[in-house]
């Protein structure tokens, strides 16, 4: 067994989005997104073969007209409301057939019907050997919704069908649902950005139009990139690293039984909600889609997952603090460097972590096209076209609603959130705070309870030493900070030692290096 575990893998990248603010779909948006992504290829990684990228992709509005044309060509009947699934299936025909069968079965349970299966045209010649070796079969499934269903109903039932399917497909490592939605679709894989339209001729098809296109290029810390880990995921693309991922996954598991959404009575069937083996970004995507499927709106979901630094923010008012305070008990921050772009087909959003550790710059041009990315200047708009240049700062959330063409800043979003309920009043009424020791009368501050003998007995039993009392404990008590030392540690580790060491000595602290930054700690 090797010490090297691919599961330690980290990733980072370049990311961004292009959107026509008034929701006017065009192929130009898709084309420009690909061009922009190509202009950030220095932010991505290339595998040892020099041709296989670590993964890149696009997340866009479902191009309705394109799929209607495809359906017409194939003589499939499409309902007025339909969804499309983008699936990676095993190269093993038997397994692929099994996956299709199970998907149809799960869709049937939801009274959804399959209009047709489409083998997505691809051109594998543009891939490097590593990308080729792991390339899955890529299929699209067109799904008809019953008459009368609303868009959100369809999304919810697709979510449940997919979760049930995924639970049955755990043994098939190649099976992966890139997207399954009536709102959006994902094209991604292990190629260089410039080769996206060559690999997927769909992307070069001018009938494929969208008003929104998210893009992402990955830099992973290994040379065995995987197709499913290419981004965007179903809702978002993430640049950065969730430092707290172990904690978030554990709490997602611990909290699962508390999640209860009236709009999805069978939500518990979708558990576990968050994967524990994919990338940190994919876990975040899982959490977000669960919250959205359960009926939470994008604003609140994003503000819960990646809140700004609210506790000590001098610019924030009490009502807003109360909103974050109220919600903090039920969701811990997914903390770490993060530049995130996301869309649900109508809204487009960008969020940045509380410390502003990932760059995110935007430009709005005269034709009302919003370009937002890790870098500025990723396509060549003329200087006289630029109306506005800005950036998304630390802890900010920028949302574009393509239905009404409005751009919402954090300020407006937070104002909406804090007014939804009287959080401050609720908190004042029902939460209590311990009285700090400084404010307690002397009598309540405790007295020494142990006799000298008892104290000695306890100290010996718990492995205290005279050195520790004087050099560690007393220094803390006298100065309020830890003692300093130098010349490192030259004693044996606990397991090698012949002495009785405390259990704590068996643990070594981890720390951030390279793929994410440590912080400055301040009081």
């Amino acid at each position, binding site marked *: 067994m090797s010490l090297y575990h691919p599961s330690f893998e980290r990733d980072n990248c370049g990311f961004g989005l292009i959107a026509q603010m008034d929701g006017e779909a065009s192929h130009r948006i898709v084309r420009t997104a690909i061009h922009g992504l190509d202009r950030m290829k220095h932010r991505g990684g290339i595998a040892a073969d020099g041709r296989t990228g670590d993964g890149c992709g696009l997340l866009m509005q479902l191009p309705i007209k394109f799929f209607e044309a495809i359906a017409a060509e194939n003589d499939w009947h499409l309902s007025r409301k339909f969804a499309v699934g983008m699936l990676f299936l095993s190269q093993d025909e038997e397994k692929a057939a099994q996956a299709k069968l199970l998907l149809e079965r799960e869709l049937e349970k939801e009274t959804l019907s399959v209009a047709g299966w489409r083998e997505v045209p691809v051109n594998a010649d543009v891939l490097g050997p590593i990308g080729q070796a792991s390339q899955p079969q890529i299929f699209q499934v067109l799904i008809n919704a019953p008459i009368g269903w609303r868009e959100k109903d369809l999304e919810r039932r697709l979510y449940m069908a997919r979760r049930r399917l995924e639970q049955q497909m755990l043994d098939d490592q190649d099976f992966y649902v890139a997207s399954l939605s009536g709102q959006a679709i994902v094209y991604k894989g292990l190629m260089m950005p410039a080769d996206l339209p060559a690999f997927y001729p769909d992307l070069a098809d001018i009938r494929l139009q969208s008003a929104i296109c998210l893009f992402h290029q990955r830099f992973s810390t290994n040379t065995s990139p995987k197709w499913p880990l290419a981004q965007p995921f179903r809702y978002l693309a993430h640049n950065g690293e969730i430092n*707290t991922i172990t904690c978030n996954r554990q709490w997602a598991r611990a909290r699962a039984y508390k999640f209860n959404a009236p709009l999805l009575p069978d939500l518990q069937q979708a558990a576990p909600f968050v994967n524990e083996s994919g990338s940190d970004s994919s876990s975040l995507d899982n959490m977000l889609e669960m919250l959205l499927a359960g009926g939470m709106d994008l604003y609140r979901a994003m503000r819960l997952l990646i809140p700004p630094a609210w506790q000590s923010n001098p610019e924030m008012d009490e009502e807003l603090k109360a909103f974050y305070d109220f919600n903090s008990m039920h969701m811990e921050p997914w903390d770490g460097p993060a530049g995130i772009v996301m869309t649900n087909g109508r809204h487009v959003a960008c969020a940045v972590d509380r410390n502003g550790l990932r760059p995110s710059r935007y430009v709005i041009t005269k034709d009302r096209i919003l370009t937002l990315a890790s870098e500025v*200047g990723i396509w060549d708009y003329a200087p006289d076209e*630029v109306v506005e240049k800005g950036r998304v700062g630390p802890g900010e959330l920028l949302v574009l609603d393509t239905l009404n063409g409005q751009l919402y800043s954090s300020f407006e979003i937070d104002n909406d959130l804090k007014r939804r309920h009287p959080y401050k009043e609720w908190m004042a009424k029902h*939460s209590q705070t311990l009285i700090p020791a400084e404010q307690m009368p002397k009598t309540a501050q405790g007295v020494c309870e142990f006799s000298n003998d008892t104290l000695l007995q306890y100290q*010996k039993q718990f492995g205290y030493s005279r050195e520790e009392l004087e050099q560690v404990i007393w220094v803390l008590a006298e100065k309020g900070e830890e003692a300093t030392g*130098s010349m490192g540690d030259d004693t044996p580790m606990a397991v090698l030692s012949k002495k009785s060491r405390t*259990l704590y000595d068996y*643990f070594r602290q981890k720390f951030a290096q390279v793929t994410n930054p440590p912080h*400055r700690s301040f009081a």
Partner: protein
Amino acid sequence: MSLATCIGREQNLFNETMGHAYRVMFDSPVLLFSDFNQLLALDSTYYRANTVDLNYDLAEGLETAIKRVCDEAERLARTGTTLLILSDRATSKNKQVIPAAMAVGAVQRVLVDQSLRCDTNIIVETASARDPHHFAVLLGFGATAIYPYLAYESISALSLKHGVTETQKLMLNFRQGIDKGLRKIMSKMGISTVGSYRCSQQFEAIGLSTDVVELCFKGVISRIEGANFDLLEKDQQVLQKLAFQKHQPLPQGGLLKYVEGGEYHCFNPDVVNTLQACLRDKDYPTYKRFTQLVDDRTIATLRDLFVVKGDKDAITIDQVEGADTLYPRFDSAAMSIGALSPEAHEALAVAMNRLGGRSNSGEGGEDPSRFNSVRNSAIKQIASGRFGVTAHYLVNAEVLQIKVAQGAKPGEGGQLPGDKVSVEIAALRNARPGVTLISPPPHHDIYSIEDLAQLIFDLKQINPKALISVKLVSEPGVGTIATGVAKAYADMITISGYDGGTGASPITSVKYAGSPWELGLAEVHQSLVANGLRHKIRLQVDGGLKTGADVIKAALLGAESFGFGTVPMIALGCKYLRICHLNNCATGVATQNKQLRDNHYHGLPERVMTYFEFMAQEIREYMAALGVSEFEQLVGRSDWLSALEGVTEKQQQLDLSAILFKPDIPAGCALTWQETNPTSDQGELNQTIIAAAKEAVEQGETFKACFNINNTDRSVGAGLSGHIATTVGLQGAKAPVNLRFNGSAGQSFGVWNAPGLNMELCGDANDYVGKGMSGGKLTVYPPLGSMFQSERSVILGNTCLYGASGGKLFAAGKAGERFAVRNSGAIAVVEGLGDNGCEYMTGGIVVVLGKTGVNFGAGMTGGFAYVFDRFGHFNRRVNTEMVDTHKVSSPIQQQHLKGLIEEHLNETGSEHAKMLLNDFENWIDCFVLIKPKNVALNDLLRLEQSQPELSVVAG
């Protein structure tokens, strides 16, 4: 950052109702007596508390006892207990105690599995926790809050002994100290709130068996097996027995400093003295006595459990490659001027250069008079403080090492206390003598792997001949990080163990952060081989290496180059007193104190050379015995190592096979370094610029040219700055070189800009503009006739002027976060900033003609800033810990400010600047001057204007 903790039952987050507000909040998970009592006294309808005793009968056994505790916890949680108190308080002679961390981890797992954790909080009442690491472990495995009663009792007793009566203050101090330590531990992982730290298991367990990990610490990384329940219980029994033997005193300890009969120390007085004796007398037999003391010690490191067994016949020593070709494999480890005295620092450089190895400058710059001489450090380090890192520094190196982490305190920054900042040090670091200098925890231009790739690209652009090295510290996952580093086009990687060197750091960082190098080195080697990248990386190890046997074992595990820190210091006279951080090193090695250096420093480069000569000889003897004529043949031959059984029962439980695993080599790759790792991007625009300007620069003539630029043109100017620094030197181009660009510049525009190079950009720029610039001028402005207002639009990215030490920057627009962080001399005018502006600034002048973000001026100890505060909100955004704010009232300062704005207008044509100047008398009232508290208002201009002269003195 926040340690705020709350308890109560969690609710369904899809609903928001008044009832969801029920909870009790407090500021720290470390409970004082009164906090704990308040919790117990809460309304039992909502907050019922019940205690589970962690003491058990020996007959029951530790494992069974833990399972029973879990069952009890589950039962209590099911029946409505909200505060589950795990307590080890009820000790008795006939009972054993379950280590609190084991109980917490096991109970946490059961409560999560049983869907109960969100209705219950785990409160630990324990005697065992007394330093920040202990609390971190408990929180990391699931504790909500901790009441460390024995620490408080002990403090009470100590206060009597020390004659301090204010015990309450002591308790509060203790808690404050633990809180600070916790913040530091969380910061190391980049975690901001304790809510996101709780249960995050940010540890590697070293030496625990699988059954212990499964029951108590499920999910934590544990790779070499180790102590099982029985052995942990036995350890407890020893203490238990001692505890109830009334007349036995409390042991002295010896974990921190060597004590006769206490814990073994690898650098014990015997080892140190024998080493110094052999070098003083130049006596090889004494050296062999030293290596015997080390190699035959009681088992103290993982490598002590390995034995070397080759499969070849021995050869004679003449058949083995000569010492001369071994020396290039040896480097002295990074130790800065500042940590070391200048004499010791130079002695190391001289020794390594004469020998053919390499010395490392450490962070903090180097006196340019040492360049191109035997006193030059061949390895120049780039650390987070960027002190003294200029174009000139960077081109005078064979190797450029990016210090990502440091063994003694990975994940932390550093500081050079004011009393060590002498006139010489201050000159090198572009600071004022006596002012504490802070290195931030992260490199502000490495928040992510693609950022590191960018920094490596910057370095390769400015010094194409240098090899780029990245220094990492061992921890689980360092192998994949190293793979990423290789993909980011580094040429060398150094893996350090946790052992650490001179660096002063908090005791818990020294003792608990990072992993041993044996694990890290093996993991990195295995990862690089498996990923087909090993042949592109020269792999180095450092951390407590002392003897030829250490080197051979490290080579077999994959290292082909070796770093030595402590031993060379001992060779120079260090007595291992562990007081480096106090600036009164009795041997003059690690101090700036003139007297100590003059009277007590007797270090000679020859002694250092003797050490390496002896060691090379010893290595050659080993090689002969192994039948290996070339060192290269040893690298990565982990099959030549086998694990010993171990002496103690715990050692015998270890499984070291993963360390010895030998991966298959993919086709076309190798087990050792074969080739450099050039970037795929050739930096074409830089090549074009150099080709065009080269001759003019070399002839000392003026030069002018214009280019188009876009975001794929990165580090533009670096190539020419490097060329200027190489061919002309520190002072920069003799006649101005003026370049003009149109478009959007890629990252690092004008990085390490050299004096004499002026670059003008019509358009906008990405991150890192003017990073490390030491002279010249950068001007950025939007195209004439742009529709947007410059003071409302972003024109520069994040982290501009990071580590700059001179030159000027004018930008007609807003900059991003962390503008001018660690600036020590550049002058800048911009029209707005993001958060954390001027952080850790030690010199230079920043004018902001618009809004700033929050936390302005944090940690700023030099230089000053003017901010245009039109709406009077700036006082909320400035961090006044180290700076204060003033009106710009003196006519000289007003004139100075006006001059800078006029210059800005001239350079950029900014409409906003024009507007301010048109009515300057009125607007002047809106300006705020921000300066370090310890600098007098009247001294500001004098100090800043004398700055350039200081660096001339240094030259």
